[in-house]
């Protein structure tokens, strides 16, 4: 082998080793994240164990910590947001994909995609100064007229609370779900839709019976992405979710989400069990996010297996 060929082989080997290390670095950092969270939360895990997840007291003075109300706060706000966002986003996506002339589509969908990329504190600011006064008026009206209903039986004048938090989360995830769903709906083969139309279906019937079932896996993925964002969102929720540690009884109650609790209290945590408990909360949040993500991937895998079998 000539000297030149030896150099070439060495160069390749060095490059391969560098690339391999960089690739492994990703795995190492992912594992480091999990280990670090456990390590930071360990003091609290040792003291409270799994009871932390169902404890309803969070008292830095008596040093008792439990996180059930914040878990509930996070999930309630996330799911209400999802419940509000899904019909609006899927409806918007259908409209954009099937009822908008081709030239108009980018004009509307481009700004929507822009909105999906806007930092969350901007949403938070808008929510705090523009949305909350409106929600306050709405809440006061609801309490005055329907206050007997347990969901409306709460401190309406705050303005901040579960309802505001859910609303801004919904507003934040609508662009994401809409943008992805629109792309997915556009991949439905025209032959399928046109086949339905040729059989005499109305446009809506073609969409409802062909396009939506065809793309339901992708739409599900888009929705899960939105849910993940809603659960993990910090800044906007901290600004308008009402940061209070209490079991919620109504839609107007202020309540922390796990993220907003960590954000609000971390720099005030004066002793190690306090910090450790907050990191434990972070670990729980991380766990929930990962669980949703993995469960969604698994469901998508199952659904697409079944689907491909049908196409055979």
């Amino acid at each position: 082998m000539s000297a030149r060929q030896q150099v070439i082989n060495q160069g390749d080997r060095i490059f391969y080793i560098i690339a391999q290390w960089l690739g492994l670095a990703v795995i190492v950092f992912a594992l480091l994240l999990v280990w670090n969270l456990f390590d930071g939360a360990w003091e609290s895990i040792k003291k409270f164990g799994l009871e932390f997840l169902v404890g309803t007291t969070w008292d830095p003075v008596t040093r008792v910590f439990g996180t059930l109300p914040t878990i509930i706060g996070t999930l309630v706000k996330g799911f209400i947001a999802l419940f509000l966002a899904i019909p609006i986003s899927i409806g918007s996506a259908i409209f954009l994909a099937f009822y908008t002339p081709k030239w108009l589509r980018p004009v509307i969908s481009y700004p929507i995609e822009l909105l999906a990329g806007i930092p969350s504190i901007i949403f938070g600011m808008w929510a705090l100064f523009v949305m909350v006064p409106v929600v306050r008026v709405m809440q006061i009206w609801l309490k005055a007229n329907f206050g007997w209903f347990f969901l409306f039986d709460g401190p309406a004048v705050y303005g901040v609370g579960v309802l505001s938090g859910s609303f801004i989360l919904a507003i934040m995830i609508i662009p994401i779900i809409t943008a992805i769903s629109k792309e997915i709906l556009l991949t439905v083969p025209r032959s399928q839709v046109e086949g339905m139309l040729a059989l005499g279906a109305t446009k809506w019937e073609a969409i409802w019976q062909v396009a939506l079932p065809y793309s339901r896996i992708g739409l599900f993925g888009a929705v899960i992405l939105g849910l993940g964002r809603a659960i993990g969102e910090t800044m906007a929720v901290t600004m308008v979710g009402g940061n209070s540690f209490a079991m919620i009884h109504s839609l107007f109650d202020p309540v922390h989400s796990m993220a907003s609790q960590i954000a609000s209290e971390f720099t005030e945590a004066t002793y190690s069990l306090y910090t450790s408990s907050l990191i434990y909360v972070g670990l729980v949040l991380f766990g929930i996010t990962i669980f949703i993500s993995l469960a969604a991937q698994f469901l998508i895998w199952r659904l697409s297996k079944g689907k491909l079998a049908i196409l055979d």
Partner: protein
Amino acid sequence: MTARYRYRKFVEWANWIGMLCCISITVFFLVAILGYVLVKGAGYINWEFLTALPVPAGESGGGIANALVGSLLVVLIASLMALPIGIGAAIFINEFPSHGTGRTIRFLAEVLTGVPSIVVGLFAYDLVVRPMGGFSAFAGSVAYAFIMVPIILISAHEALRLVPDSLREASLALGVPKWRTILGVVVPVSSPALITGVVLAISRALGEAAPMLFTAFGNSFWSLSPGKPVATVPLLIYTYATGPYEDWHRKAWAASFVLLMVVLVTSVLTRAFLRGKTNE
């Protein structure tokens, strides 16, 4: 026209109205939010705002220059860490596929994109702030880098995938070693998409406030040292917006305007850039 047919036509029309409402709601919020930030924020932007230091709380005047510089500093250091890892790992996954670990890496990257940014902040706190004994710009950079790597990795991987194998094989056939093929042929060919991914990651990091809460922490003065706390724009917006001073609120709107402009310009530029290059 049968009754059944009239009914179906009605359902069609009703649903069309329904979906028109949906898209109207979406566009309404789009206009409301963007419009509000533009209108409320633009009025306060002036030269002093962009170049002066903050004045004591509540007094008018002064600016956010230290936060603008601070954000750039933190993101710069983060990019120096995130770019090699993100692109290097993508090269590893795509150009050396005989390793099964490539799929694991890609899967992990996709999972990591969903990690809440506050959890990343906790990670950076434990990894950097605790051992260092204090808040620092560097800790903030570590947090941003953690957020940026999955984004860069995934978009770089997709970009590298699009490069046809014929280019690689032509280069190898000419006797070019594999590493030079990758660096000299594959990477330059995929560079528009690569750059787009990097710019998107940077733009995402610039707007994240949550990780900064307990890493870079904030600073009222000029600070260019990576070992000291530093002000960043998104965290400043949060602090000012939730503060009690009217002047702070105005400044928060103006800072939001700046941040929004950065995100918009980045997005428009990358779109135009990508479209221009792929039309060749």
